[in-house]
């Protein structure tokens, strides 16, 4: 059985417009709350390194504000080319605190 390794990422109250950009273990990560779920994605577009912080969210698709490349925040996959992936991290909210699993 795999051991979970949750890391405190932020307080839910710190989200503004359901988002917060954080830096954790040297990774730039964007926390996105959608409905009652929290998602954690790499905050750097694979294309030209733009940050997604101000990117438009359409359903589960996050659009890069620079060149409109869109990625599914559940899988990290680019909508038109699944080989291009952002890192995504398991995330959860527990009593108002957001945790993400960074892996090893």
């Amino acid at each position, binding site marked *: 059985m795999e051991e979970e390794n949750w890391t405190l990422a932020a307080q839910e109250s710190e989200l503004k417009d359901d988002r917060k950009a954080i830096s954790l273990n040297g990774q730039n990560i964007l926390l996105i709350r959608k409905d009652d779920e929290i998602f954690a994605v790499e905050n750097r577009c694979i*294309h*030209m390194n733009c940050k997604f912080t101000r990117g438009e969210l359409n359903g589960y698709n996050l659009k890069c504000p620079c060149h*409109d*490349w869109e990625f599914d925040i559940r899988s990290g996959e680019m909508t*038109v080319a699944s*080989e*291009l992936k952002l890192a995504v991290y398991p995330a959860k909210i527990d009593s108002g605190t957001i945790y993400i699993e960074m892996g090893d």
Partner: protein
Amino acid sequence: MDTEKRKAQYREMFGRVADALGYKFSPDEEIVDFILEQEVTLEKKHGNPFCPCQGLKGNREEDMKIVCPCIPFNREHFDAMKRCWCGLFVHKDVEDPDELEQLAYSEFNS
């Protein structure tokens, strides 16, 4: 914007995308350098490194699909040619890009 520095950045960023899609920079270094230089010029003028071999349509939705590398938005067409429209990128197994033919989209789609 320093042209040579920006070209080096394109090589790193675009190479990463192309590699994941099964492409590499053309072995014709002269072509690669020329096209990247054109893209720096376009970025200086328009704010984005558009494909220098395709015309801007004037609307964002369409124009963003020709920001280099535009492979994700033209996959079937480029895979059929084993190169992107400009020839900046070719399939990884291509050794001689001169053997590849440019196929108009209308011809590919017919």
